[in-house]
C-alpha cells in the first residue's frame, strides 16, 4: 500500500503537435536507471502491472538491434511491442523506435535522456516523437481506453482520498 496516492511524480507535456514529453526524478544514479531500462530481467519487473505482466522476449542492445516484449490483451490475445535501438550512449541517451501490434504502421521514436543531479539522483526525460498529430493523439488515447476500461479503481481511490 502506498500512502502517497495523490502525489504525482511524473510530469507530462506536449511540446509540439507530434511529441509527448515526460519527466521524472529517480533516487538512483543514471547507471542504475540505465540498467533498469536495458536489462531484460529488471525491465520486466516494472514495465507491466502485476495482474498483466510484460514478458521481455528479446533485447539486442546495439545500434540497429531490436527489442520485443509482449503482454496479454483483455481477450487473452497477445500484444507485442517492438522496435530498434537507434542511439545507445550509456548511461545518458537511449533512443529507440517503438511499434505495437495493435496498430500496424504506427511508429514513434522514443528518446530517453538521463541526467545526473547533484544529490546523486537522476532526472529522466523521455520524448516520444510521432509521424503526425493523429498518430500522437492515438497513442494518448490508447492510454485513455485502458483507463476507461480497467484503470478506474486507482481513480476511485484517488477521489476517495481527496474527499476525506
Amino acid at each position, binding site marked *: 500500500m*502506498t500512502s502517497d496516492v*495523490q502525489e*504525482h*511524480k*511524473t*510530469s*507530462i507535456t*506536449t511540446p509540439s503537435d507530434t511529441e*509527448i514529453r*515526460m519527466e*521524472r526524478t*529517480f*533516487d*538512483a544514479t543514471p547507471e*542504475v*536507471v540505465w540498467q*533498469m531500462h536495458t536489462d531484460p530481467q*529488471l525491465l520486466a*519487473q*516494472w*514495465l507491466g*502491472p502485476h495482474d498483466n505482466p510484460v514478458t521481455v522476449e528479446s533485447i539486442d542492445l546495439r545500434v540497429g538491434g531490436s527489442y520485443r516484449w509482449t503482454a496479454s490483451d483483455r481477450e487473452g490475445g497477445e500484444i507485442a511491442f517492438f522496435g530498434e535501438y537507434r542511439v545507445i550512449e550509456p548511461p545518458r541517451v537511449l533512443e529507440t523506435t517503438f511499434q505495437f501490434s495493435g496498430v500496424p504502421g504506427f511508429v514513434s521514436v522514443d528518446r530517453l535522456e538521463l541526467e545526473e543531479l547533484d544529490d546523486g539522483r537522476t532526472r529522466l526525460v523521455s520524448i516520444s516523437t510521432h509521424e503526425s498529430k493523429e498518430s500522437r*493523439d492515438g*497513442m*494518448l*488515447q490508447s*492510454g*485513455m481506453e*485502458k*483507463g*476507461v476500461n480497467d*484503470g*478506474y479503481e*486507482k*481513480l*476511485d481511490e*484517488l*477521489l476517495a482520498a*481527496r474527499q476525506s
Partner: protein
Amino acid sequence: MVQFPSLDGTFSALSDPTRRAILERLGQGGATISELAEPSGMSLTGLKKHVRILEEAELVTTEKRGRTRHCRLGPKRLDDATSWIETYRRSWDERYDRLDELIARKKGQTR
C-alpha cells in the same frame, strides 16, 4: 490532478461503473433511456439519475423525441485531450512507481 481542475467533474462522473457502462454503450451509437436500462436490469428512474449526472458533466446529451428520451455522447467526450494526457500520465506514473520500488529494493532499503 492539480493542473487539470476542470476535469474533476468528469472524473467524478466516471467514478461509477454503471455510468462507465452507459458511456461505453453510447460509444457504439445513440440509445434511448430504456435501451440503456435493458442490459443493466436497472430501473428507468435509477438509470435516469445516472444519465443526469453524465449530462451535468457534459459527457452525455439527451433530447426528447415524442415520448422517448434519446441519449448520445456529449461535447466533453472521453477524447478530451486533457483527459487523454492525464490518463496517459497516470499509467506511466504507476509504471515509474514500480521502478522506484525496484530501485529501493535493489538498494536494500525499505521505503
